């Protein structure tokens, strides 16, 4: 289910108007431990992040959406266990 969550990550990054480099910087700032290359791997689905790593990426994106006046559109891993998978990426 994490892989399904990850599907939308790069789309979310583009919607948030963040370059790969800036998203990595925000992710690193929030405590992420993966390299920029690995992060790109997560975004494109080539690598599968751990749930914790995924949540840091999701949060970095969500904080950007909040800056843009939005809410937290990117789902966290815990949302999936409490909700149906269909709704999770909304």
């Amino acid at each position, binding site marked *: 289910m994490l892989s399904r969550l990850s599907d939308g990550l790069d789309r979310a990054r583009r919607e948030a108007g963040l370059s790969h480099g800036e998203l990595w910087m925000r992710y690193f700032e929030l*405590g992420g431990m993966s390299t920029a290359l690995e992060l790109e791997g997560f975004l494109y689905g080539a690598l599968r992040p751990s749930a914790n790593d995924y949540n840091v990426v999701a949060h970095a994106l969500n904080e950007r959406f909040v800056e843009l006046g939005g809410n937290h559109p990117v789902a966290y891993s815990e949302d999936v266990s409490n909700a149906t998978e269909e709704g999770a990426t909304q």
Partner: protein
Amino acid sequence: MTVSFWADEVVVSVLGDVDLVTAPDLNVVLAAVLERGPGPAVVDLADTHFMGVAGLRVLEAGAERLAACGRRLTIRSPSVLVSRMLDISGLAEIVNIQRADQGHGHLGPEQTAAVPGTPVTEAGGLTRHLRRVTSIPADDDVVDGALSLVVALARATVGGADGVSVSLQRHGQLMTVAASDQTILDMDAYQYASGEGPCVDASVEGRWFHAEALDQETRWPAFTPKARSLDINAILSSPLLAEDRPVGALNIYSRTAAAFAAEDQELASVFATEASRLLSKAGAGVTDDQLSDRLALALRTRRSIAHAQGVLMEREGIGAQEAYTLLRTFSRETNQPLRERAADIAGSTRRLPPSPAPEQKEGPCSVG
């Protein structure tokens, strides 16, 4: 904290107060700047109201270091309170002090146009300082400045690191372009001279070399005894790649055998990858001041978050990951950035009597 490189001086601008938590960051950045070259160094305190003893010590160490080579550190625009502390501590006698009302070269109109009484926000400070940058050094200098910063950051954050250097292939030979101290320069030089060692191998082969315990090391018979004679017992060399070609290595040295735990190796890899990206994009307009202030800021936030995690772990009796999830959930529910919540929590403990709490490991062991 921002670093502006001018043709005639380097200015470290401190944003906010310097206390026990932020003084180490100032130390890292100031050390990197002082290592970088002979030009005048300025610490701009216009946005700092309070400076603790830890901050004064950092300035003192910087001033003494400059004094050793006949230079003086300049402290620009200290607040009334900070001026008083500089006087009391005796620091005022060993540094140049430029008061806020004294004119100096780089104050643009945008600075004087600030509305009186309006606090300068961190973002405002950053853009202001970025706008003020007018001169960019030659290409190699830009890269070297940024790599010095990577060295300083790796030295400060990778557990067990007693010294760090970056070796690069330039003009057909391997040379050290940034190093944390003389011992480390010597360590690298021994490897170049003997043509063997983890740094040489990582630079040539483009893969990791980890000498966990030099007393059991057999791969580099000429180099290993030299290293041990300088009391170095563990080395971690990560390859630096530009456009996927090996061009050098990030070398981390420790006096302690088996010093580098798994998370330290991960952090080393993160720094090596970032240095590689820098090298790949060296011509693409990344200036060292932009990189340095963004990295310094990111690092400071990471540290603050790790600190808040530690506070929550102790207060709630929970694990690191649960503490992180608490912070994240709070941020989600209130739309307050996680870093601000972390800063509140970290700040709420500062008034308590100092407890000898173990220093937070850099980076959330929680993540990953």
